[in-house]
């Protein structure tokens, strides 16, 4: 009935055209796609909830939320030293990426710690107060400063600005659990190793 169209070349041409049309549709929709992505607070929030919130800026971003936002747009998940390994695992599970080791450019895993000001040496310069991202340091000009221990995130940001180096980061003893699990199965992660998410 349509001998011309039945030839393979014409079919291929039609196929190309169809694919072109399809791409057009996708590009058309992409506008909405990006638009919706920007408005998806919940993604950023949920990624943010996995971060340790030390606000230390070791990842290169100013605080945890900006890093979460960057991750939602494709940033690597292995840039958070204070979170420890569990943070990276959780992030890669949520974002469906391969499990990675910590990026050494951003430091090493840190133990729980707290900053302490050696009060006799403090000159009251307020530089650490300005540096503290969570307002955990008290004190006025020319007055001695002190760290509110319960609010300190051990972010390390106050140590550099101190002109007399009177702030120490004291490591807290690791919390030892009272009850130890007799055995833990190594997780199969069955669903994940097949395509590995990131490969797509």
């Amino acid at each position, binding site marked *: *009935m*349509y001998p011309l*169209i*039945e030839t393979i070349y014409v*079919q291929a041409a*039609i*196929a190309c055209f*169809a694919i072109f*049309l*399809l791409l057009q*549709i*996708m590009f058309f*929709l992409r506008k*909405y*796609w990006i638009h*919706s992505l920007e408005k*998806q607070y*919940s*993604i950023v929030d*949920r990624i943010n909830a996995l971060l340790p919130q030390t606000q230390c800026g070791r990842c290169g971003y100013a605080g945890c939320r900006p890093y979460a936002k960057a991750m939602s747009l494709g940033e690597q998940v292995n840039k958070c030293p204070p979170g420890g390994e569990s943070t990276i695992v959780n992030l890669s599970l*949520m*974002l*469906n990426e391969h499990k990675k080791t910590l990026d050494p450019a951003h430091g090493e895993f840190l133990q729980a710690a707290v900053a302490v000001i050696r009060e006799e040496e403090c000159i009251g310069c307020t530089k650490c107060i300005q540096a503290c991202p969570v307002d955990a340091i008290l004190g006025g000009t020319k007055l001695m400063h002190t760290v509110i221990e319960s609010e300190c995130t051990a972010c390390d940001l106050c140590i550099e600005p101190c002109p007399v180096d009177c702030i120490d980061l004291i490591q807290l003893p690791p919390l030892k659990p009272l009850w130890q699990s007799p055995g833990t*199965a*190594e*997780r*199969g*992660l*069955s*669903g*994940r*190793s*097949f*395509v590995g*998410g*990131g490969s*797509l």
Partner: protein
Amino acid sequence: MTSYLGIIIGAALVNNIFLVQLLGVSSLFLSSNRLQNAIELALLNLLVLFLASTLNLLLFNWILEPLGLQFLSIICFVGISSSLTILILESIKRKLPISIRRQRLAFYLTSGNSAILGISLMNSNSLLSLPQSIAYNFGNALGFALMIVAFAALRLRLDCADIPAPFRGAAIQLISAGIVSMCLLGFAGLV
């Protein structure tokens, strides 16, 4: 009425699109092992599969066949199913859970398409009447959705199992799928 029921059960269980016809198998292994997410995904797939294959069916029956353009069916099916899938997914994207929002989305799209294409092609060759074919489509979509949910529950058990390293992941799931398809083979002849 019984014939429709038979067609639906036959398509959903006996000739299950995943396990007996092996179409779109990969999305079986990709879905989350959280049942809640799996159910959302299953419903989504049910919708997409049913709508797209029915649209393809109507296209074939009302346009392609009268015009004698059957040889264009594959291209048309692919075009319709992918655009429809994209449309549906885009329209309900905001409501999707995060686990299936990111990269996986693309994969579902394609795997869904292979299932849709399979169903549509089978429809175009079948002897069923139009309403029967729609029932067949629904049965297939239902089977697809059921298997996603059941496999999510199964995978939850496998995730906690102490499986030897070489068999972890896809291997054990393929073995499980093989065993399940063996048992679904038992229903052969039912319809």
